[in-house]
């Protein structure tokens, strides 16, 4: 067809406005989808930190060795002798404590007797 014929082809009313609207829609669709892709791909750092802390705690419990007291004796006889000595020391201290308590009790009794005597003298 000749160029003149091409120019005789009627352009529909509102064609440019329709295409403008179409381009706006493409732009809108692209922006919405780009936002959605960004939102889905974003790393939630708070979740990463929580997961790391949990993993660190788990590893600590898994690999922790129970606290063992330090073994200071190699000879059992020596160890027994040491225990015996410690118990005797405790007993001695307890014994002196009992004696002190007995002496205090005697003093209290003497004092009480004195008060009773004075009271009896008064009443008689």
């Amino acid at each position, binding site marked *: 067809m000749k160029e003149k014929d091409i120019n005789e082809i009627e352009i529909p009313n509102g064609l440019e406005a329709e295409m403008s609207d179409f381009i706006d829609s*493409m732009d809108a669709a692209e922006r919405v989808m780009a936002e959605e892709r960004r939102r889905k791909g974003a790393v939630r750092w708070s979740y990463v930190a929580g997961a790391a802390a949990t993993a660190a705690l788990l590893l600590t419990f898994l690999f922790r060795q129970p606290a063992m007291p330090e073994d200071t004796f190699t000879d059992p006889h020596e160890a027994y002798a040491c225990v015996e000595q410690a118990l005797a020391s405790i007993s001695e201290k307890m014994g002196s404590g009992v004696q002190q308590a007995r002496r205090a009790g005697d003093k209290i009794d003497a004092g009480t007797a004195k008060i009773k005597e004075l009271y009896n003298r008064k009443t008689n």
Partner: protein
Amino acid sequence: MEREDFKRVWLPLSGNFYRAAYLVLGSEQEAKDILQDLYVKLWNIRSSLENIDSPLAYGTRIIRNMALDKVRSASYRTRRVGVVAMEELPLSDTPFQGSAEHGLIEKEMVLKLKQTIVGMQEPQRSVVQMRLFKDMDYAEIARKTGLSQINVRVIVSRGKKMIARALSEY
């Protein structure tokens, strides 16, 4: 290339492109369909179009080839069974059906977007159109609609989620 720059270069040529398509197809509706396909293609490659010397010649060549591809594919389908058909390479860079690459716009996506917006209730439809199509900021939309800015933000956010869900199959 921003939307307004794209429109400034390619939109005024829509009449020329339409005539080139109509010349081949002879149908107003088919010519408009092909014109939309052309704009989808140009939009998806717009970053590489900035150095085109003659947008008119470039666009006319593409739409003419697209129209010829359509005519050939239609005539190919009506050929009788048993006849060995020769391979026909498409003239356009991309097949008539359009690109299905991830992240690129397809014509069906635009139609789905429009359907989704039409299906929205007011004031969401108006608010989403103002935000997405007219690039109005939240304060402006709030002033026009009488809604609070927070309300406008919530409405736009929900509207975008609806659109994203509708377009998620593409």
